[in-house]
Structures are given as C-alpha cells and as structure tokens.
C-alpha cells in the first residue's frame, strides 16, 4: 500500500495543496480547477476504475463553505483515494465526472439536490430522492431541521406551524 501511495504522492504533488493518509485512505486536497487533471491521472496511471461516492460537507463558518468529496477505488491496487476540494457558497460549481465515470451521473444528482453543488457538464441535475418543487437544500446546515414541504394538504387541526415552531 505504501508503495502505491508514494507513487501517487510524487505524481500528484504538483496538483495537490495537501496530501495525507487517514484511516488507510490517501486524502488529496486540490483546488477545483485541478480536478479533471487529477482524476485523469488517477484513472489512467493508477487504475482507479471505480467511483464510489460523490458527496459534500457543509462548514457554515468557513469562507469557502463546502467541501466536495470524491472517493475512488482501484481494483488493480486495492486501495482507496479521497479527493477533496473547496467551493464557496456564491458559486458552488465543480466539474462533472460523467465523462470519466458513468456512475457519477446519479451521485452528482443527489449531491446537487442535497447541497446545491452544481456539476459543470452533468446535463441532468433533476432531483432524484426529493420531489419536484422542493425549495432549498436539506443537508445544508442552515436548512431548518423540521423544514417540511408537504405535497398533500394537512387535515384540519394539523398545522405546519406546530412543528416549524421548533425551528
């Protein structure tokens, strides 16, 4: 494992801002602009042929509010790599990986509806778990905990207010 990580480190040194190993996973932090090149290197040079997950982390206090996180797995070397980048709230855009990995399409759709990250190059960012007409991004930290948006009108005696009051 160490050998492949060393090889990765020397290859990605140019692109990454920080590299570390956490829980047996090599963590590569990159600026958003370096994503395409990093992924290309991982896929072509090191056989990272599986995209496991695309997700985001919301840090409300930080200036660059969101971490976008990709997990890759190499079936050849049997190691995982986590690629992380930071984007701001005003323009949360990163490149889509749909051209490199087909599985990115659905993962990016989910990440988009939950965090509002836009993926440049993914033409289908419709909601996948949420419904049409849902306003806001529920996994952002500033989304109200009980911010429900019912599709069916509540029966008499049941107000939205009695739950939204707990906001």
């Amino acid at each position, binding site marked *: 494992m160490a050998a492949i990580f060393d090889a990765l480190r020397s290859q990605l040194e140019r692109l990454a801002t920080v590299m570390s190993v956490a829980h047996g996973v090599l963590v590569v932090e990159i600026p958003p602009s370096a994503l395409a090149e990093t992924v290309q290197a991982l896929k072509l040079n090191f056989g990272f042929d599986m995209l496991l997950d695309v997700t985001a982390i919301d840090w409300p206090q930080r200036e660059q509010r969101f971490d976008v996180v990709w997990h890759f797995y190499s079936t050849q070397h049997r190691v995982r790599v986590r690629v992380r980048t930071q984007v701001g709230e005003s323009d949360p855009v990163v490149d889509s990986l749909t051209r490199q990995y087909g599985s990115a399409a659905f993962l990016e759709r989910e990440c988009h509806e939950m965090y509002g990250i836009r993926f440049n190059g993914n033409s289908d960012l419709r909601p996948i778990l949420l419904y049409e007409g849902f306003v806001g991004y529920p996994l952002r930290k500033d989304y109200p905990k009980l*911010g429900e948006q019912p599709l069916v009108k509540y*029966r008499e005696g049941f107000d939205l207010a009695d739950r939204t009051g707990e906001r």
Partner: protein
Amino acid sequence: MNSGRAPIPITPAGGSKSAAFEYLTTKKDELCGWARKFSLFPYPFVTACCAMEFMSVSSTPYDTDRFGAALPRFSPRQSDLLMVVGTVTHKQAPILVKVYEQMCEPKWVMAFGVCATSGGFYQNYAAVAGIDRIIPVDVYIPGCPPRPETVIDGIMQLQDKIAREKHAILTKDF
C-alpha cells in the same frame, strides 16, 4: 354418535312450526358490526422495516385469520382496512392519499408502528410526522416495530370499535 336424542326436525312434519331457527331478532347495527368486524380485508401499504412484523403477524404462529383479517387484498377497491406499515415520506404521501380515496366505504385505517403513528424518530424534511396528518386513522399501534401481540391487540381494539359503530345502510351519498 347418536346418543338417542331425536334429531331436530328441519322440515316441519305436518304443522307449521319446527324446532329449527326461523327467525331471530337483533339490531341492525349490531348485526352489521358483527359481520364487518370478522371480515376485515387488509390492504398492506408497506413501506419499511415494519413489514417484517407484518409478515410475522399474518403467518401461522400468530395467525390473524382467527380475527378474519388474514387475507390481504392488493387492490384498494377490494379492501376495507388500510394498514399503513412503515414510514411515509412526503414524496410518498400523495400515493397514500390516492390509495385511501380509492377504497370503498366502510373503511378503516391502522397506523402500524411508530413511524406511521407519529413519524417516530424521523423528525426532518423527508418524513410525514404521522399519517393522521393526511388521512383519518382508527387505531394506532405503537412500537418500533410492534410485537405481533401488540398488532393482534390493535386488531381486536379495531374490532371492538367496528362493533360499537353505527352502520348506516343508507347515507346521504347513497
């Protein structure tokens, strides 16, 4: 087998009276209630893990057939008990309402488990905090998931409720 007693004559021998029942008197609501409470046809609206307990309670060891409530009808038009088994999300809610509205009167609704009853521990943007917010509920069964005994108790309470109800033959809609 024959202990010597004369069999009860079904057909009167010559007169017009026999020992067999010719009529009995009861109240219409009691009769309808008695008939309806023992012929519950459940529609299982199963969305989550409570389904395992639903299967358990309908199978042999617990045997809801004893209560006339064993045969699930997978068409809402043929069923009169809507068993909502599991979490109902806001995305699912319009489907639940549509199923409920397709059922013919008389109909009853059972909230099976804590998620259907109150949303349970799902207090967030996704889950409906109790199906009684969108459709009327007759019996709530607590538990996560409820034990089969709890479900049977719920069915029996619903039967009592049905027996006590007014069963209008003619309503304003009919």
